[in-house]
């Protein structure tokens, strides 16, 4: 039985309070980091741990930190991406609601490592309870000297501010998030320069996801080797899996990286709803291409899922059963991307508009011969040609649905109706 690490406090009464967090060993990692390690040693430790970003891209965290120039002559910033918007994902919300100090401790240690004195947590505006709990936790941490000036008698100063988002999925893209923090419309920036060199207010900036930062205190306390021994060596650690859709026990599960998708869906999730069969599973939020039922033995880690033609993404695992029309699912996913396209680049803004039109007509039984070729041509025009990954995510997701469930699309066109209605 795997013992929860990141979720160990979430079901503890008053788990969001400092007293509870400290009673469970909280803030010992920060003390250890400040007393026993230089900032460079923390970066090396995180590099050795092979921690990879939990926001979706899986970039090595320690490597990202090491890109920050040592002497910048400008303030450095740490930003936490808590704008959890990938459909099917709710892990960061639960950490912030029920164990906000775990995030704050991770922020403080990470800020110390990169030499930042200010952090902004960019959190979804809808997450009212998480915002309230995080505000309360920041105030408590300040009062007890875990944040503020000369923390624990060191010369490290660190403050954490909350910045509420206002409903733009594109803010999950880190440079769009920076523009949003600067008070602009959220649109991705041209790279380079990368944020580590020129990010928020043109200063060196690191952007990390909530779950990534929550891993950091545990690595400091228990060591890089301990972390690497959980799951696959190149993609290790405890992992939060968000299980939703047509499954008996939807919920947030913490298990090692690399566990088989089937185990997650059938053992943790209790399998399909009564009388139904699983048709496909989206393993990493709607940007991740779906995996048909016969492919569920794939390991839930960055490399295994990439090899299987999908991605771990945000580990938003959405189960789809045999009562559901895949054309409808594909249409709803593309409608989402179309709605959230920031409008900056043409292939995404215009391409998705056309994809939605074609998909809606196919789903309504008004598709015409040639529509599937048209959809593929549109995917080709979008994929690889957009400013950021939003358009790519839409195109690869649609392609997977077309590849694995072509017969359903064809049936809609040939029968002039949705066979599921």
């Amino acid at each position, binding site marked *: 039985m795997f013992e929860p690490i990141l979720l160990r406090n979430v079901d503890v009464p008053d788990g969001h309070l400092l007293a509870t967090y400290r009673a469970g060993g909280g803030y010992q990692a920060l003390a250890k980091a400040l007393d026993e390690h230089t900032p460079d040693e923390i970066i090396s430790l995180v590099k050795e741990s092979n921690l990879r970003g939990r926001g979706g891209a899986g970039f090595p965290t320690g490597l990202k930190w090491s890109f920050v120039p040592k002497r910048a002559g400008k303030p450095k910033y740490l930003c936490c991406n808590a704008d959890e918007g990938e459909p099917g994902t709710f892990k960061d919300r639960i950490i912030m609601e029920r164990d906000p100090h775990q995030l704050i401790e991770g922020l403080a240690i990470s800020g110390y490592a990169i030499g930042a004195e200010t952090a902004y947590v960019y959190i979804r505006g809808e997450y009212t309870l998480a915002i309230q709990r995080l505000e309360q936790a920041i105030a408590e941490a300040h009062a007890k000297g875990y944040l503020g000036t000369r923390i624990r008698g060191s010369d490290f100063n660190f403050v954490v501010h909350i910045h509420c*988002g206002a409903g*733009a999925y594109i803010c999950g893209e880190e440079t769009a998030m920076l523009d949003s923090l600067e008070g602009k419309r959220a649109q991705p920036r041209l790279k380079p320069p990368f944020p580590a060199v020129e990010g928020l207010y043109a200063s060196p900036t690191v952007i990390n996801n909530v779950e990534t930062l929550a891993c950091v205190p545990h690595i400091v306390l228990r060591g890089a080797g301990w972390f690497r021994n959980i799951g696959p060596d190149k993609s290790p650690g405890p992992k939060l899996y968000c299980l939703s859709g047509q499954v008996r026990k939807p919920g947030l599960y913490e298990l090692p990286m690399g566990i088989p998708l089937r185990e997650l869906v059938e053992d943790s999730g209790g399998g399909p709803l009564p009388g139904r069969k699983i048709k496909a599973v989206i393993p990493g939020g709607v940007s991740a291409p779906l995996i048909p039922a016969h492919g569920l033995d794939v390991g839930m880690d960055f490399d295994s899922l990439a090899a299987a033609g999908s991605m771990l993404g945000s580990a938003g695992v959405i189960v789809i059963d045999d009562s559901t029309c895949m054309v409808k699912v594909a249409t709803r996913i593309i409608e989402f991307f179309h709605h959230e396209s920031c409008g900056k680049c043409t292939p995404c803004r215009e391409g998705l508009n056309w994809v939605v039109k074609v998909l809606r007509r196919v789903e309504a039984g008004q598709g015409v011969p040639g529509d599937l070729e048209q959809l593929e041509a549109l995917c080709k025009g979008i994929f690889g040609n957009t400013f950021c990954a939003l358009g790519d995510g839409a195109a690869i997701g649609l392609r997977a649905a077309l590849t694995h469930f072509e017969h359903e699309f064809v049936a809609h066109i040939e029968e002039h109706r949705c066979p599921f209605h």
Partner: protein
Amino acid sequence: MNMREKIKAAAARYPDQRSAIMPALLIAQKEHGYLPGPVLEEVADILDVERIWVYELATFYTLFHTEPVGVFHLQLCDNVSCMLRGAEDLLRHLEEVLGITKGGTTPDGLFTLSTVECLGACEMAPVMQLGDDYQGDLDIARIDALLDRLRATAGQATGADLAATVPPGE
């Protein structure tokens, strides 16, 4: 604190006043219920930033409303995880019992019905946001009970209270 003081306090968190536009708009919307032109101009004046910077954020981000919304804003998620658990049926039911289509407000100004993208609470799908709270594991019976409760709350308020909370008609 009044609105100006709240906005000034939020602005102190940033080295650049422009960064404070989003928090200022959230504060102003909480105060006024929505963001009509004069409120946007007031925000620009308080922060001493270009008005166009304020307008463009108010119209880009979906949490900002430049038109009035009802006393109770029902924001039902109909993204994939909620759709797979019956959100469409709930939307149809809400449209029927409220007598409005999505995006609309009831003539008494009590309810606005919207669909929204994923609320990040898929473990309790289908889910809806109502004010600051999430209502999860919804079904038709729960929705009906919720509407009854909201109507009762509104019924207890005096006409003057309601006039103060209901934004001017659409």
